[in-house]
């Protein structure tokens, strides 16, 4: 059952990704991206990373993509649907390069140890943490103890990003 679901969502994700690249209009690309994100979130859940799946939907699909959409709308790019994919020799070369990359990656990542199923050496710890703290707690527990310093710094990073975005984007009057 899980396998079938996996392949379904996998194909949706790949289809969405291809849609992102091939779509004519920017908004279309964006929507395909949302589809891909949703499929990937489903994959997360299938991989027992429930919290992350939720965060993916909420943050990525819900905030970041909306941000993209806002910018597209702001720049009024939703209208002219001229194809803006590069053609010619360059795209062929690019296709070849990325194909090679794909081959190498697949080859390299094809068979890690204990990859037959869902479980591996770390899986047991995760399941134990899930059972003890709940799904959210399993993430929160290391986040606020071992990784609290990066957590705080990330907060500052977000602050800086907000300020930077404001400064860069505001109208100079």
């Amino acid at each position, binding site marked *: 059952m899980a396998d079938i679901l996996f392949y379904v969502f996998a194909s949706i994700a790949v289809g969405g990704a291809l849609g992102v690249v091939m779509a004519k209009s920017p908004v279309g690309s964006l929507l395909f991206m949302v589809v891909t994100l949703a499929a990937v979130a489903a994959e997360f859940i299938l991989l027992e990373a429930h919290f992350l799946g939720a965060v993916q939907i909420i943050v990525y699909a819900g905030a970041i993509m909306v941000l993209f959409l806002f910018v597209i709308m702001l720049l009024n790019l939703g209208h002219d649907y001229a194809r803006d994919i*590069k053609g010619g020799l*360059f795209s062929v*070369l*690019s296709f070849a390069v990325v194909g090679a*990359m794909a081959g*190498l*990656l697949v*080859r*390299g990542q094809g068979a890690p140890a204990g990859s037959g199923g869902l479980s591996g050496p770390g899986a047991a710890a995760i399941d134990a943490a899930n059972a003890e703290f709940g799904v959210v707690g399993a993430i929160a527990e290391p986040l606020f103890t071992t990784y609290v310093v990066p957590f705080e710094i990330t907060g500052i990073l977000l602050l800086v990003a907000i300020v930077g975005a404001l400064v860069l984007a505001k109208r100079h009057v």
Partner: protein
Amino acid sequence: MHATLSMLLIQGGGHEAAAGGAFEPFFPGLIVLLPLIGFAVNGVLALSHARRSADAVRAGGELELDGPTGKPSTHTLPTWIGPGVLAVAFALTLVNFVRALGADLHDPVVIHYWTWMATGTFTVDAALQLDQLSLVMMMVVTGVGFLIHVFSVGYMKEDTGYPRYFAYLNLFIFFMLTLVMGSSYPLMFVGWEGVGLCSYLLIGFWFSDREKADAGKKAFIVNRIGDFGFLVAMFLLFVTFGSLDFAEVLPLASQELAYGGGLVAAITLFFFLGAAGKSAQIPLYVWLPDAMAGPTPVSALIHAATMVTAGAYLVARSSALFALSPLGSGVVTGVGVLTALFAATIALKQYDIKKVLAYSTVSQLGYMFAGVGAGAYAAGIFHLMTHAFFKALLFLGSGAVIHSMHEAYHHTHNHEDPQDMRNMGGLKQFMPITFVVMWVATLAIAGIWPFAGFFSKDEIIWQIGAMGHAESAQYGAWYTLFWIMALAAALMTAFYMTRLMVMTFHGANRTGQEESRHLHEAPAVMWVPLAVLAVLSAFGGWINVPEALRASFLGGFGALPMSEWLHHWLEPVTASATATQLANIGEASHYAPFGGGEVMWAVISTVAALAVVVVSIQIVGRWDIKPAAEDAEPTGFGKVLFNKWYVDELYDSIVVQPIIRTSRFCWRVIDAGIIDGFVNAVGYMARGFGWFGSLFHTGSVNTYAFILSLGVLFVLGAVIF
């Protein structure tokens, strides 16, 4: 420097005096130094004059062209300094000479001043050597030099380069004295090169004329070929003896070098190559006729009396070496007589008065070499001395003639050649003093008793025959041929000199009506030196009357006090050579090749010469000579002689053109093409690399991302495989 100066002024520092009545040199360093000082002072005057003239021209003024209006620094100072230093030098030389006469001088006196080069085993000192030979040469150089300096005061009066002229002339005397007074071959070579330099500077004195400048270059370059020979000979000597001082080479020559061996033959032949370049023998004589482009006093001093005699001096100085090589001596004699004959043939058909004298000089130099080559070193030096007298006189006299002709043409703005004898004629009525003195010189050079040339030339011709047929001499037949050639050349000499005199002074005047009104005698400052030289040419021969002649009427029946004086005087210098000769080829013969003693042949030669002179006056007097503008080109064999047997053209096609072509090839193909092309190619390559690199800078994000991806691919590949 201070120490050296004080050493110069004190009589010698570290000289080796001879035994007996010691000869103490009297300020010998000053003799050499004074002309150098004269050069420096005159040179500074010349430079300041040149600068003033340049400033004047730049400020819109005029060049100071005409002499007498020149400022004191341009004329008065060089007039006194130029000949003045020579007068003092001559006086000092005279004192030294008189002292040497009184002293008993067996070995040369060497005065060291400082060490010039000191490298391990080989040292060369700046040292002067005073012995009989160098004293004779010094007397000739300073004495005749002084007279020519005085003459130049009058001749160059209106030349803008007056101070520069005297500067160069003084510098020449300095180098010539270094040459004859140097105590080692390298020091002699310094003088050798220096006189070559001064010759170049003075031949090309009027360098704004392209032809004259080229003549100077030709002289220097041909000389260089000879200098190569001199250098190789020095190298060979160093290898054999380890030193190049005269005192260390010449006395040991007969011990270190085998008689008739290959090494000594090589040394002597290379020295002769150097002498041939400097003294204008075949094949390196071609520069001397062209050197007539210089001022006439220069031709008199350098190309008659002194510089060109350096070769004969070299052979005489190295007599010990030449006596050891019959091959070397034979070549010297042979080339000498051949040159004498060859140049005499060319002189028969030249029209320029200076060219006739130039070829005559080449011919007489040939006689000098024939003399020293045959082993008669004293005779060769004797002829050098007498030749200095009468050839300088001839040149200076022709200078007076040219001076007068030039003035005449200047007045009428005529552009004819003042040196062409066809434009002269009948000058004896205008220039009587010059006429008389030049006849004295002509009789001297023709070898007519009792003038100087008779004794010297006769001695040489006799010795060629006598030495060539010594008891066990080799090459006897060759020497007979040389003897005949020398006689023939002597007769030709008489003829062409008479032709010169008749064309110039006798007959009707061809210069033109207007011009002849301006012909006049030379001023006193010019004819007084001529008179002095005439006296020397007339009576100078009596210092070396051979023993055999002395007893006869030719030598005054033994009444005169001096007999073979020069021969005896030079004996210490030629002792080593004489000893070698006696040991290897025995005594000289007492009979000429075809029989007859010395007296008989002396009488025959002087009578024959006199006959040629008398007959020539008649023949040449009857010729119909037209002025140069109207005269036709010579034809037939005369044309060949007039064109100098086409030797210059031959050299041009064999030597000069190939060198030019090779140089052009090296320049255009190798230098500009290959080497420059190579360097340019490197530049182009750099540009190519730059162009290739620029292709990557498209400014497009996608391209940059592409390259990134390629990099990632590469890393992935490296990690996975």
